[in-house]
């Protein structure tokens, strides 16, 4: 079947082209077909698999969200926006949203600030470069589940490491699990622990690609290191900065593993002090309610929120990073064109 397609395709093309009076051999036809079809063949595994497991479910979520749909009962009646109306009047949804944003901000902002400073330090002409670089990446290979078990013990309310150390300084024990803000800080610490080094290396990689001539010129002009950092490094690594901010946003707003395992029960504390939106999705769909429709509704809302925050971050990062000298801006424009 493949051969007949080839022949008809090649046969149709041949008369059009005046410069091929010779009879074209079979292998040549095959080669032409090879050139035409191969690119599509090579990209198709990605598009097929990603379409089935990534895009289709996302679109289908919108469909499920307007039905009364249960884990056990399956698809029920069409209910329109009832699922959305239900979750919007649930206090737990709003609590989850508040917690998610609070944990997201407490983790992303310090994490990226530390990462960018660490990357700048690593960008210097260090001895034993690889050792330092590998050192910051060690936490990345520890699974979030393991991280949350470790930090769950460090931040235990009684006899936890953090409170014991604070106790030796005479500080009252902090209710890491009991109160809202301390629990958010504890969860954010776990996220920061795992991702700071990862982001550091990504940012360092971008810094390494900055042409050294720019720094040499700046030194000649008498710019201080701090000035070099803000006027050369930051604008030059802008695309990577945007990438890191966007991926941190997507990850941070979907946070599940760390808060879920912060205690044994996994509901985000007795007062849902640290329950995130993704935990709420899980609970709606697979927990007590087993309502896929409501879970899908929340998932869709969260998707829109992530999209909005992602775009806002994109805009912000662009503004922050373009706060630079005209030269830097010009060279950046060249880069974008490329």
């Amino acid at each position, binding site marked *: 079947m493949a051969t007949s397609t080839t022949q008809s395709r090649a046969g149709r093309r041949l008369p059009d082209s005046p410069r091929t009076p010779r009879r074209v051999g079979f292998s040549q036809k095959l080669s032409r077909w090879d050139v035409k079809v191969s690119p599509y063949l*090579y990209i198709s595994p990605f598009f097929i698999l990603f379409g089935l497991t990534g895009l289709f479910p996302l679109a289908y979520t919108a469909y499920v969200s307007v039905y009364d749909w249960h884990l056990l009962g399956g698809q029920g009646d069409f209910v329109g926006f009832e699922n959305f109306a239900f979750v919007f009047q649930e206090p737990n949804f709003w609590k989850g949203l508040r917690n998610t944003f609070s944990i997201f901000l407490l983790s992303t902002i310090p994490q990226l600030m530390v990462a960018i400073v660490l990357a700048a330090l690593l960008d210097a002409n*260090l001895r034993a470069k690889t050792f330092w670089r590998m050192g910051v990446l060690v936490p990345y290979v520890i699974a979030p589940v393991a991280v949350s078990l470790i930090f769950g*013990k460090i931040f235990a309310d009684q006899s936890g490491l953090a409170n014991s150390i604070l106790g030796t300084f005479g500080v009252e024990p902090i209710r890491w699990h009991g109160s809202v803000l301390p629990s958010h800080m504890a969860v954010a610490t776990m996220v920061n622990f795992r991702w700071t080094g990862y982001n550091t290396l990504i940012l360092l990689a971008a810094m390494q690609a900055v042409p050294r001539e720019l720094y040499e010129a700046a030194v000649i002009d008498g710019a201080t290191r701090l000035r070099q950092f803000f006027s050369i490094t930051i604008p030059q690594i802008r695309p990577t900065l945007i990438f890191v901010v966007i991926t941190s946003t997507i990850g941070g707003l979907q946070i599940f593993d760390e808060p879920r395992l912060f205690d044994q029960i996994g509901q985000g504390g007795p007062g849902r002090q640290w329950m995130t939106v993704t935990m709420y999705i899980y609970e709606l769909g697979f927990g007590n309610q087993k309502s896929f429709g409501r879970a899908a509704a929340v998932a869709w809302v969260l998707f829109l929120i992530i999209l909005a925050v992602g775009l806002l971050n994109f805009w912000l990062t662009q503004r922050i990073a373009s706060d630079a000298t005209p030269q830097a801006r010009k060279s950046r424009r060249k880069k974008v064109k490329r």
Partner: protein
Amino acid sequence: MSAPSVPYIRQTAGARAARAASRSRGYGSDRRPGWVTYLLLAVSILVFVSPIYYAFLLASSDSATIAQNPIPSLIPDGNFLANAGKVLNADINFWKALTNSVIVAVVTSVSVVLFSTLAGFSFAKLNFRGRRGLLLFVIATTAVPTQLGIVPLFIVMAELGWLGKLVAVIVPGLVTAFGVFWMTQYLESALPYELIEAARVDGASMIRTFTSIALPAARPAAVMLGLFAFVGSWTNFFWPFIVLGSTNPTLPVALQLLQASYFKDLSLIMAGVVLSAIPLLVLFVVAGRQLVAGIMAGAVKG
């Protein structure tokens, strides 16, 4: 033939050396940084490593000692092997979880590397209608949080009868948009058109060109992508937790079960944590240099 090529090599070698020299200089001077830089780095690495060491300290202790003294001594007790043995023989299928994690991580990372390199080669070096649009689409989808499609994905898995089976975890991990984007970026600059043309003139088919020209050229970036995919799949919790359940767990799911069933015996939980981390730590020590080099190579080229 060899006569003109010698100065050419010398010239490029010289240029490369000059570039390397200027690159290794920090901020326009070849001065090595002062001790403050090293101190700050050392402190950060200490902060990064100490929670892991703390887990190991608890795993080498026993619950009675931990209860008595919340701040452990910095030298580990000798109970790690005993605790690890208990975890391996506990009724949470730790061995099975280990095997499952290895299977899932190996299959998905090999597949991600293979399919990403194939697609990357196509996007970076081959001409076809719709190339720009499709590539833009891939880049856009890296920003889509796929985790949010869990409800329909779960319904699909249930329809297929895959719940509780490893295939339910493997199939959604077979490709990543990031991987395709990454390989496209890398191959665009790392693979000269001349090489491809030479292979075509020699009569190589497309797939032959891919396996003997593109695949070797892609190696540094592929190693890094493979490691990232491996770590990503090894540490993934959310999706395996939803579809696998307690009978056929991966390591993170088994750890969660361990906490649920032994939450009073902290040294056992920590032994499980350490056990689950050892394979990746070993992999990281063996391949970490390549990983770090890969990140740098990708960025410099991209």
